[in-house]
C-alpha cells in the first residue's frame, strides 16, 4: 500500500501545483498582456465610468430604449452575479402565462403595432444575461423608440442596421444586435 500512497500523494501535489496554480496564472499573464480589455470583462465606459459590459445584457423598461431578452435571474432581472434561465418546460402553463404578460406589455407600450411579436422579446434567455436580440426584435421596436424620441423611423432603422452583426463566416450562430450598444448610440445621437 505504501508503494501506492507515496506516488499518489506526491503526484497529486505536484500536478495540482502545475494545473491548479501555474497553468491559470500563466493564462492570466498572457491574457493581461495580450487582451486586457477582454480579460477584465469587456467593460463599456461613459464619462469615465463603467456603465456595463458589451457581453452582459441590462434590463431596459423605459419605452425610449430598445428592450432586450427577458431575464429569469433572481431577485432582479439581468443579475450579473447570479446567472440562470427559467427552466420552464414547454408544457408548463406558467411559461404560457409569463409569455402572455410580456406580449401584453409590449403591445401596451406600442398600441399601433399589430405585427407578430418576435419570440426573443418574450422568451427568457438561457443565461438571463443575453446582451443581444435578433434584428427582427429590434425592428419590431423601432417605431416605438422613434416616436418616444421624436426621431424619424428610418433613422432608427439605419441605426439598427449599423449595429447588426451577421452570422460568423456566414454559417455559425445567428444575426444579432447588441442592445446596450444600440441604446448608447441612441443616447449619443439625441
Amino acid at each position, binding site marked *: 500500500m505504501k508503494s501506492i500512497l507515496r506516488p499518489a500523494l506526491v503526484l497529486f501535489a505536484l500536478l495540482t501545483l502545475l494545473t491548479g496554480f501555474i497553468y491559470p496564472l500563466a493564462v492570466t499573464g498572457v491574457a493581461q498582456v495580450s487582451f486586457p480589455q477582454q480579460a477584465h470583462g469587456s467593460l463599456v465606459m461613459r464619462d469615465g465610468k463603467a456603465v456595463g459590459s458589451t457581453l452582459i445584457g441590462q434590463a431596459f423598461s423605459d419605452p425610449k430604449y430598445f428592450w432586450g431578452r427577458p431575464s429569469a435571474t433572481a431577485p432582479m432581472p439581468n443579475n450579473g452575479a447570479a446567472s440562470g434561465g427559467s*427552466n420552464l418546460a414547454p408544457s408548463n402553463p406558467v411559461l404560457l402565462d409569463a409569455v402572455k404578460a410580456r406580449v401584453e406589455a409590449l403591445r401596451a407600450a406600442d398600441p399601433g403595432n399589430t405585427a*407578430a411579436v418576435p419570440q426573443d422579446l418574450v422568451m427568457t434567455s438561457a443565461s438571463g444575461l443575453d446582451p*443581444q436580440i435578433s434584428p427582427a426584435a429590434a425592428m419590431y421596436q423601432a417605431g416605438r423608440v422613434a416616436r418616444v424620441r421624436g426621431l424619424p423611423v428610418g433613422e432608427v432603422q439605419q441605426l439598427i442596421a449599423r449595429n447588426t452583426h451577421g452570422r*460568423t463566416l456566414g454559417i455559425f450562430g*445567428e444575426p444579432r444586435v447588441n442592445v446596450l450598444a444600440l441604446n448608447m448610440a441612441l443616447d449619443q445621437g439625441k
Partner: protein
Amino acid sequence: MEPLALINLAVFLGVLLLAAYPLGLFIARVADAQANPAGSILGRVESFLYRIAGVDPQEDMSWRKYAVSLLVFSLIGVLVVYAVQRLQLLLPLNPQGFGAVSADSSFNTALSFVTNTNWQGYGGESTMSYLTQMAALAVQNFFSAACGMAVAFALIRGFARRVLASDAAGKNGLGNLWVDVTRCTMYVLLPLSFVFAVVLVSQGVIQNFDEYQDVATLDAVTYETPKLDAAGAPLKDASGAPVMEKIVTKAQTLAMGPVASQEAIKMIGTNGGGFFNANSAHPFENPTPLTNFLQMLAIFLIPAALCFAFGRMVGDMRQGWAIVAAMSVIFVAFALLALWSEAHGNPGIAALGVDISGGNLEGKETRFGAIASALFATITTAASCGAVNAMHDSLMPLGGFATMLLIQLGEVVFGGVGSGFYGMLIFAVLAVFIAGLMIGRTPEYLGKKIQSFEMKMVSIAILATPMVVLVGTALAVMLDPGKAGISNPGAHGFSQVLYAVSSAANNNGSAFAGLSANTPFYNVLLGIAVWIGRFGVIVPVLAIAGSLANKQRSEATVGTMPTHGPLFVVLVIGSVLLVGALTYVPALALGPVVEHLQVFVK
C-alpha cells in the same frame, strides 16, 4: 430541415475528424512510455516528477494494482475537493467572502468532479471562491480526464499485448498508472487547454482575479424582494405572506474570475462544470458563435482522437475507423432529431400572437439560436460533458428525449475523455460475443478470445449504470424529499428526476436544471450514483484488460469475423441501441413522449 442546420452538422464532423486524426496519432505516442513525444526538456521534467514521487516508470502494473492506484488517487481528490470547499472562507482568493459550502453539497461536488461528472447543485458565481474553482475543481477537470485516458490506454494495451511462449502466465501488466496520468496531463491536456484558453480570452472570456464589478446601468430596474427585519429574517404580514419591498436600482454587479483557464479544460476534458451557474450559456464563458463552435469541437476532440490512437496502438487503423463510424452514425441520428425538434417552436406560444419561426428560444441565447443550441445539446450529452449553452429543461419534448437517451446509452457516442472509448469497446466486445453465438464460433476481438470471465465483466460494466438509474429514479419519485425538488408539473416533472439520475450515473452532469437538487437527499443520492457509474465501469474494464493482456493473440483466418467492416459497425450500433432501448423506453414513454403529446396533440 433547414440547410443551415445540416451545413453546421457536416462542417462540425469534418473539422472534428481533421483535428482528431493527427491528435490520435500523437496520443498513441503519449501512451508509449518509451517515446518522448514532447521533446527532451519536458521529458526531463517528467523524469524529475517521477524521481520525487518515487515512481518507477518501468513498472508494469497488474490490473489490480492499476485499479487500486486509480481509486487511491481519486479518493485523495475527493478529500481535497471536499476540504477546500468547507474551508474556503479561511483560504485566500475569496474576494466575495463566500462562506463554507454545506457538507452535503461539498460531498456531492467532490464526488462529481472527481468522477468527471461535474453535476452542479450550486451556482458557481454565488458559491465558490476563485481558489476553490481554480485549485480544487479545475484540477479535477484535468485529473479525471487523465484518469479516463489512462483506463482507455490500459484496455487498449490489453488487446495489443502479445504473449510469448516463454512468458510466465499473468506476467503482462497494463502499463503504469502514474506514468499515464502524468503524461496525459503534461503532454495532452495542459498544452491544448493553454492554447484554447488564450483563444477564448481573445473572444471575450474573462480571466482575472478582480472583485465583482459594479457598473451604473443606463436604465433603472424595479423589482420586488422580501423585506427583512433587523435580524435578517423575512417579515410576514398578518396573513403570514411575506412583506415585499419595491427596489429601484441603476446598479448591476458583474461576476469576475479566472474563467478562461477553467473553461478550456472544462470542454477539452469533457467535464462540463461551469464557472458560472449558466455554464456555457453565460456570455463570459461562451461569448461568440466562434467560441461556441470551438467548444463543441473541444468536447469531441479527445474522445474521437482516442479511437485513432486505438487503431495505431493495435496496429490496424481500420479498427479505429470502425469505432469512429459507429459513434458518428448514432450521433448524427440523434443530432438530426434534436435539430428538428428545436427548429419547431412551441405551438402554445404561437397561439399568443408570437412569431416562432426561429424555433424554440426559451432558455436559449440569441447569438446561438435554435441550431447552435440543439447541436451543442446533442454533443454535450453524446459525450459525457454536460456543459450547456441552452437550458435543457426548456428544450422541446423530443429535444429533451434525444439528450436524455444519449446520456442513457452509457455515454459511448464519443463519450467522455477515455470513458467514451472504453465504454464503446465494451459494447464492441458484446457485439463480437453476440455474433459469435450466432455463427457458433468462439468470439474473438483483435485476435483475443472473449470467454466467460470477460463476458461476466462486460455484463457488470453494462448493467451497473442502468441499475443505479432505474432504482435511483424510482426512489426519488416515491420519496417526499425527492418529489419536493420537482419544479415543472406533469410528465415533465418525472423527466426532471429521470434526467438527473441518468446524468449523474452516466457521469454527464447536465440537468433539467429546474429540479431543486441542492438538498441533502439529492446531494447524497446523486453523489452515490456518480461514484458507482464511474468505478462500477472502470474496475470491470480493467479486469477485462488484465485478462486479455495475458491471452495469446491469434492470427486472423478466413473463419475470423472481421471487426472493421460495415457489418461490424452495424452490429456495434445495434448492441448499443438494443441495450439502451430495452432498458429505458418504458421510462422515456412516461416522460418526454407523454409531454410531446401534451404539447402537440390537442
